[in-house]
């Protein structure tokens, strides 16, 4: 067998290397990107005060945890665990049960990002469609952020106590524990099905819920934007009275408020310089 044959893509070990290396690249890229966003927001005093940027920063920080977990790829998998497809220890696997669980928690924590995405989507909708002010958003944003974090914890921590985290060949995540299932008298198929159910309960289910919510919010947003574009210019300007009774600035009928400054405080735009 020539060297080219042994290093070809047909060789499972080469595939194993590829599947171990790629998450390191994409995970590092994601980690760096999220870090850049977080730094960009947190280093700017003005952005730090904005709801949009706060959500974005929190989302990026949460994503950094997940990205780092992906970056580790096969490293935290328990060394010598013989669950690979080649009956060998996984490539570069040098962890133990604790590191495996830690990585699984990090990956599972990524579900928090999805909920923060929903919050961000709701933010767009509230600002653009319902013309919510920055002040009113700031009133509720801490609750939303805490809620998202609690949901993330609620979907991550129980897995530790249920003992559902383990080696999934690519990295550690929710996996069937055949040894434990055997003790419980479950067949291999039942064990696999149970892991699959856990995945749906703790990951796929919440993710799909978020996808549906985000899609609905974006559809509503798109609809309102198109509707505002269809409206004839000049005929839809209105001066909606502000809370203090003064008339606000007329809105552009061509572009709804928020498409341009959706992430800024409308009230603070004309505020004098500090």
């Amino acid at each position, binding site marked *: 067998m020539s060297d080219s044959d042994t290093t070809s893509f047909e060789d*499972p070990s080469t*595939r194993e290397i*590829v*599947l171990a290396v*790629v*998450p390191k690249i*994409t*995970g590092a*890229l*994601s*980690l*760096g*990107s*999220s*870090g*850049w*966003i977080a730094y*960009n927001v947190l280093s*700017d005093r*003005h*952005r730090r005060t904005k709801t949009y*940027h706060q959500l*974005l920063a929190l*989302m*990026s920080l949460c*994503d*950094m945890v*997940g*990205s780092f977990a*992906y970056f580790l790829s096969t490293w935290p998998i328990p060394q010598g665990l013989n669950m690979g*497809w080649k009956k060998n220890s996984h490539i570069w696997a040098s962890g133990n049960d604790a590191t495996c669980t830690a990585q699984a928690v990090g990956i599972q924590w990524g579900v928090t*990002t999805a909920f923060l995405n929903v919050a961000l989507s709701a933010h767009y909708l509230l600002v653009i469609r319902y013309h919510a002010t920055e002040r009113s958003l700031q009133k509720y944003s801490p609750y939303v952020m805490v809620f998202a974090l609690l949901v993330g914890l609620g979907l991550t921590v129980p897995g530790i106590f249920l003992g559902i985290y383990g080696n999934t*060949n*690519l990295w550690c995540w929710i996996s069937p524990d055949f040894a434990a299932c055997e003790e419980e008298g479950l067949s291999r198929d039942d064990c*696999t099905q149970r892991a699959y159910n856990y995945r749906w309960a703790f990951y*796929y289910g919440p993710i799909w819920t978020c996808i549906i919510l985000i899609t609905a919010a974006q559809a509503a947003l798109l609809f309102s*934007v198109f509707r505002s574009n269809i409206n004839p*210019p*000049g005929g839809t*300007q209105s001066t909606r009275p502000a809370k203090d009774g003064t008339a606000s*600035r007329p*809105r*552009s*009928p*061509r*572009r709804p*408020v928020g*498409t*341009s*400054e*959706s*992430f*800024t*405080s409308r009230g*603070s*735009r*004309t*505020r*004098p*310089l500090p």
Partner: protein
Amino acid sequence: MTGKFFNPDTGFAVLFLVVLCQPSQGFLNLFAYQRHRIFAKCAGCFGCGVSGGRHGSGSRLLSFFVSSSMPSKTAAIQGSAIENATTQNLTILGKDSTAASAAVPLESEAAAIEDPEAVVQDGGGAIGTDKREKGSNDESDCLLEEIYGD
């Protein structure tokens, strides 16, 4: 998702897709965060390359994304250039610069005219408050490049 556990022998393509896409969320977030820069660049190139192409549907779509960063960009243009920028922005939005559309300045621009300094401070977009002096703008087709170009 399919209820099937893949291994590299039977489902390498699926696993490769997973390891390629799943950890990339942060990178995609950055792409979305910096979309106005990216789309502005694309729209600028497109506008320069194809004469009159800004009125196409693709260009309008690009303009929609670009428009989300208008205030911070508009804020970057100060003083005598603001009025000129207002006209430019209307053109960038892919709309005909008719009297009707020009008669209704965008809110951000109205604010910029009212109080340019305050708007500069409120550059809430991702680009932030990078101030670019544009003292004398020529009438050019490459408007996006002129305003947003790095």
